């Protein structure tokens, strides 16, 4: 699949990567649970998201991306809701689709043994991001918000702002534009002043 990932895909992928990184960082076993998956790629379809998330496992760490050359070792289907269940009940439900079943089982086991505060990570970022894209999502979360669309948009912006540090806020842009204008005006003022001075200079020069 060579569809170009947009901001939503990138943010989605990045937020999972951060959740995994946080979990491994906090894990007393330093991500030892992932050692059975060394060098493997797990393709996750996380309903209702419409693109795959590839989890690359290397040296007890997981990185994520939305594009992969070649085939993943195993493909699993799960849902955002399943991550919430995982957080609350320590049980991860994922349906085997194709590939190496042993790897699939090992991934599910690893997910269940890693202490990831999915609620925190995913309701904060992904739930809203997905909601932003498809118009519905974590109901309970969104029902609390009056203007959900606006809220999701704000969250996306906030997310990109603080987590990927990618988009300048409107304030920053306005500030920047003002600075540019001001610099421009000042340069012009100085140019005028130099012109005036040199005019004066040529006037007082004895002829």
């Amino acid at each position, binding site marked *: 699949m060579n569809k170009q990932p947009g901001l939503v895909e990138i943010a989605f992928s990045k937020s999972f990567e951060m959740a995994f990184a946080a979990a491994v960082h906090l894990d007393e076993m330093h991500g030892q649970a992932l050692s059975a998956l060394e060098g493997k790629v797990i393709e996750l379809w996380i309903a209702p998201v419409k693109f795959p998330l590839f989890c690359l496992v*290397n040296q007890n760490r997981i990185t994520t991306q939305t594009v992969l050359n070649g085939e993943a070792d195993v493909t699993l289907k799960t849902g955002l809701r399943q991550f919430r269940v995982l957080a609350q009940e320590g049980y991860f439900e994922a349906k085997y689709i194709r590939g190496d079943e042993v790897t699939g089982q090992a991934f599910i086991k690893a997910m269940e043994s890693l202490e990831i505060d999915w609620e925190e990570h995913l309701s904060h970022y992904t739930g809203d991001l997905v909601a932003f894209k498809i118009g519905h999502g974590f109901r309970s979360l969104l029902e609390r918000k009056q203007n959900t669309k606006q809220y999701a948009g704000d969250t996306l912006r906030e997310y990109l702002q603080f987590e990927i540090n990618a988009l300048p806020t409107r304030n920053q842009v306005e500030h920047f534009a003002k600075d540019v204008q001001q*610099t*421009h005006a000042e340069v012009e003022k100085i140019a005028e002043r130099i012109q005036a001075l040199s005019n004066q200079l040529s006037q007082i020069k004895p002829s």
Partner: protein
Amino acid sequence: MSQNKNTIDFGFTEVPLEEKVKKVKGVFDSVAGNYDIMNDVMSMGIHRIWKRKTIELSGVRPGNTVLDLAGGTGDLTKAFAKRVGKDGKVVLADINESMVRVGRDRLINEGIVGNVDYTITNAEALGFPDNTFDVATIAFGLRNVTNKDKALEELYRVLKPGGQLMVLEFSKVTQPMLAKFYDFYSFNILPKMGKLIADDEASYQYLAESIRMHPDQETLKQMMLDAGFDKAEYINMSEGIVALHRGWKF
């Protein structure tokens, strides 16, 4: 690019060909220490999202061999090293020793060890055998290379069949209003910021000029095809401030 055989554009100033390599080296020598900070300030942090997109689209997988040409302080190398794992390899190659040194220290500091090689290389003459890499990247580097056609031919040569080249580079802004603002930004603001932060106005003046002299989207795509790539395409990012060109060897 200049028509005159013996001179080449150094930003907007034409200089004899062999001098350009030295000048470019000088520019990056002087900015190496502040490079990361400048990078953030100059692009307001957006370069990170351009790079993340490049990484996502590379599709790299564990075991892959990746070349990060003109890799500088190693942003892409770091991300690739985490992805290719212990059976893979990333080569950070750059013409400038200070940049490579800053990059290597930084990556070692961050615990990225074991699967990264560092090498001082000119993009025009890569010291690697044919068919070595699954993915090759050159991010914000091609515009500094004197003979871009030669560099592209070399990149094609060292890619494995099925391999992909990714060129991330400033390009031609497609939106007229933004183009104006961007011009003013790069020629007036950017060098001033360079002076404030790195105390080096001239180098950032050069950076601004070299951005403007770089071939536009269609031209670069054609150059890639002429260099031998079997397929080439590009995507614009941030209205064409930056374009990601991708070329495949079949």
